[in-house]
């Protein structure tokens, strides 16, 4: 579609677009209730805000972190019932002096009934409860998320579905707490400076608008923070995320907690407006509805999810009724009885089902996916002769000690690993000196990658020890080993495919940044400083590759050439500022020219204080760059020494080419 302004609009950077859009949207939002004559519209809009909050909350869990939560309505329920119990006076507990300060503050009352012990009745104010229920929901989010941590996608979803079902059943049956199936009524409406919100939709509209604006702002901040990158890394490739220093347990629980908190806000708001809460409001179809909103809008796309939520809300409240009118009119026109009796609102769930099926088959990324606006390469950039990296220099690298390798950096002793019946590592003993470049070679299946996996903690050893700088690292999880200064690349390249080059690199910096949730949301000066520094670090690392990666920093890595993907992976590993770098077949798939370029870089790394262990198959590369070569075969170290010596070793040749066959009789 060629709209005249669209091209210009798309050319603007995202921050500029936001600067323009935000006041415009806010203005529309603020003015709308005064412009529309019908209070019903305002009411519908206020209700729609609940949907938007839920969608934004689930977006954090599913969209950002990739955790499919099919029981999200549970948090909606906990938020709703949380406030409901606190503000409806239904729950009756025995009075104790604990409650005196709260009675003072007007949040509870003492009920005196002659002949019975005194009870306390709750009627907490709305505003503090908003924060309290958010926190309670966050706790439940982590609680429900915890059992799923080791489960893969589908199973995780089922467990969350389970919790999503248990909550309304508990609500239906724990009558003392929730008044069972009848639900809670008479929930206290919010009061602001003496003004009671009552039953008019207008104050709720503005409250909802405020909450949505806050949730959108928080989502955007989270997405563009260290936290958001960690989530997206986990979503794209949890294994690689761990290998770059992201603690998957911590961040998954965070995602559940944050998502639940936003859902809780939605619940509290909804129930304050409705003044009732019943278990039927929080059943599985509600969870599915929220999923529909996120799938329709686009997983991870904030604006998509907001628009889809508004669409679904208006579908329910307005669109379907209007359409039904048209269908009735058509029926009268055509004289069809059935058409005149159609009530489209009852087919709402049918529509949801259709949306899910159609989106999954035809457009899994959603209708309004988070667009990565990428400038096409200029003619010059496309035609540019690839320039090799300039002088290899990294500001943070400790200079190599004079005198070459002189102290052991990595000491492996008696390392053993069996997979089923196969011995992948048999009593491997190896010492790597600081400042060396050691190559590990051997035929297929000799255990080279297993060795890397053992060193980096991806796989636990059956026996043996691995010491880095004298400290035992065997048994530590991968993300901790990264903080000790060990980084790696993978044989099959494990980049975060839907993220850009820069984002991939910044994940590498994760372990050395500090921003947490509050830092991500509020961006105090020290967080902004560390983000700036991280970007500078990324640019510096990118320099090492000449003009290969520089023009493509904002491109999603899935579109890069194979060689550039390899380079990005190496750059990402360098971002962790390793003292030991493990590269698994870094030149695989590269042509001779690209291989030579990379070899230049490899040779320079020890000079920067980075010890390198290389798995390689191109023996000429190995000969050229290595100080030492180690040969593995069937999990056993069969040779070790200077490159030339190893290459002509009979045992090595035999390992690769097979034992000379005995002459048949």
């Amino acid at each position, binding site marked *: 579609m060629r709209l005249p302004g669209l091209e210009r609009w798309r050319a603007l950077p995202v921050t500029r677009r936001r600067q323009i859009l935000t006041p415009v949207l806010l203005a529309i939002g603020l003015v709308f209730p005064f412009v529309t004559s019908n209070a019903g519209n305002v009411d519908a809009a206020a209700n729609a805000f609940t949907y938007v909050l839920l969608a934004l909350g689930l977006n954090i869990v599913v969209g950002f972190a990739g955790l499919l939560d099919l029981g999200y309505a549970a948090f909606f329920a906990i938020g709703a019932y949380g406030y409901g119990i606190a503000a409806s006076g239904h729950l009756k507990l025995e009075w104790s002096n604990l409650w005196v300060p709260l009675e003072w503050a007007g949040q509870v009352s003492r009920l005196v009934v002659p002949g019975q012990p005194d009870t306390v009745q709750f009627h907490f104010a709305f505003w503090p409860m908003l924060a309290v229920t958010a926190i309670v929901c966050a706790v439940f989010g982590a609680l429900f998320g915890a059992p799923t941590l*080791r489960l893969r996608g*589908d199973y995780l979803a089922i*467990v969350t579905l389970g919790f999503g079902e*248990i909550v309304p059943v508990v609500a239906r049956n724990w009558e003392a707490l929730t008044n069972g199936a009848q639900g809670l009524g008479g929930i206290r409406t919010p009061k602001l400076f003496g003004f009671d919100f009552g039953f008019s939709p207008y104050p709720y509209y503005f409250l909802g608008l405020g909450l949505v604006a806050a949730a959108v702002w928080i989502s955007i901040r989270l997405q563009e923070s260290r936290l958001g990158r960690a989530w997206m890394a986990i979503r794209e490739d949890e294994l690689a995320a761990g290998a770059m220093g992201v603690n998957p347990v911590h961040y998954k629980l965070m995602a559940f907690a944050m998502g639940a908190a936003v859902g809780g806000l939605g619940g509290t708001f909804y129930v304050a407006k409705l003044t009732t809460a019943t278990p039927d409001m929080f059943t599985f179809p509600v969870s599915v509805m929220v999923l529909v909103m996120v799938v329709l809008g686009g997983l991870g796309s904030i604006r998509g999810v907001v628009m889809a939520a508004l669409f679904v809300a208006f579908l329910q409240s307005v669109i379907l009724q209007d359409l039904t009118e048209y269908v009735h009119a058509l029926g009268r026109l055509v004289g069809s009885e059935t058409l005149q009796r159609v009530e489209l609102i009852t087919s709402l*769930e049918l529509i*949801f*089902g259709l949306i*899910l099926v159609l989106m999954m088959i035809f457009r899994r990324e959603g209708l309004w996916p988070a667009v990565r606006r990428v400038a096409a390469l200029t003619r010059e950039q496309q035609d540019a002769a690839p320039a090799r990296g300039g002088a290899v220099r990294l500001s943070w690298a400790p200079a190599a000690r004079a005198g070459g390798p002189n102290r052991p950096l990595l000491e492996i002793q008696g390392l053993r690993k069996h997979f089923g019946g196969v011995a992948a590592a048999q009593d491997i003993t190896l010492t790597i000196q600081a400042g060396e470049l050691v190559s590990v070679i051997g035929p297929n299946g000799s255990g080279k990658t297993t060795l890397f996996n053992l060193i980096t903690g991806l796989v636990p050893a059956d026996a043996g020890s691995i010491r880095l700088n004298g400290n035992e690292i065997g048994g530590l999880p991968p993300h901790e080993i990264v903080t000790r200064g060990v980084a790696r690349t993978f044989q099959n390249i494990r980049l975060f495919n839907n993220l850009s080059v820069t984002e991939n690199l910044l994940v590498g910096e994760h372990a050395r940044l500090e921003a947490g949730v509050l830092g991500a949301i509020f961006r105090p000066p020290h967080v902004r400083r560390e983000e700036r520094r991280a970007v500078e670090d990324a640019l510096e690392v990118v320099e090492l590759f000449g003009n290969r990666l520089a023009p493509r920093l904002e491109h999603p890595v899935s579109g890069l050439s194979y060689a550039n993907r390899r380079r990005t992976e190496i750059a990402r590993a360098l971002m962790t500022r390793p003292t030991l770098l493990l590269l698994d077949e870094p030149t695989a798939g590269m042509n001779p020219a690209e291989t030579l370029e990379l070899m230049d870089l490899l040779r320079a790394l020890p000079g920067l204080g980075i010890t390198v262990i290389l798995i390689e198959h191109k023996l000429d590369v190995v000969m050229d760059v290595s100080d030492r070569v180690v040969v593995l075969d069937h999990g056993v170290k069969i040779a070790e020494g200077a490159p030339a010596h190893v290459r002509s070793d009979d045992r090595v040749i035999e390992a690769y080419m097979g034992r000379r066959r005995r002459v048949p009789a």
Partner: protein
Amino acid sequence: MSAFDVVLQQIVNGLALGMMYALLALGFTMVYGIIELINFSHFSVFMTGTFVGLVVLNLMGVTAGGRSLTGLPLIGTLAVLFVVTMAVTGVLGVLIERVCLRSLRNVSGSAPMITTIGVAFILINAMLLTWGPQTQRFPQLLPNWRWALGAAEITFKQVVLFVVGFVLMFALSHLVRRTTLGKSMRATAQDADAARMMGIDVDRVIVLTFFLGSALAGAGSLFFGLYYGFTGYYIGYTTGLRAFTSAVLGGIGSIPGAVVGGLFIGLTQSLGGQLLGVKWTDVIIFSILIVVMVFRPNGLLGARLPQKA
């Protein structure tokens, strides 16, 4: 009745229920075993089966208010009912696979499962729109004969459930272990690429698995209607949950596991309902599901851990 008699009664009831759950779980587990898909729509196919059965019976002139049948008319009616319903649900399952799932065969992640959720919703609401939200009465074909077991009793309906259920399971077992199709199914479930290399048309095997599994769901749906005497658009949900838990408990992908799991959950439902009250059975069953998935994803008899990440 003494406590023993109460327990005995609940065991009889539980086993009868368990047969139904087992049939439903079997179809579900077969599909999982072959393509590692959690097929939510399976339980909606089950629900649809009851309505198909209603239509078939109405077409045969058997209505909800009518008398029960005996002897040859009963057997004849049952035979037609089962054959036609199972065929229809089988075809429905195949349609779902071809139209919705085949294009997603190579997509990783949860997209296929989400699609089955969508299909489930579509089916549920199609039935809701066609038949309305009220409960539909299912013709009580089976006469209400009872026999005493001590102070407990066993009904004719339950006997029929056991007999037909065992026949179907035996037939399935024979199919899977003795026939070529069954071996193709087992081969495909164990290693799809190797199966192709043996000349097996894996696509066809998948279609047949869906057909068989959905047909079994159809049988299970008739059990529901005949046993309980009613149906509604919502029954796929609770019964489905129980069948799903049965499959997971027994070991997802394992056929004997589905049977064992089904019987276990049936017993849990009736004994648990007796001990703790019916309203908590859902919570109990969901808790079993969660515990199994978190601590023993292989289930009781499951042979292998799911591969897909």
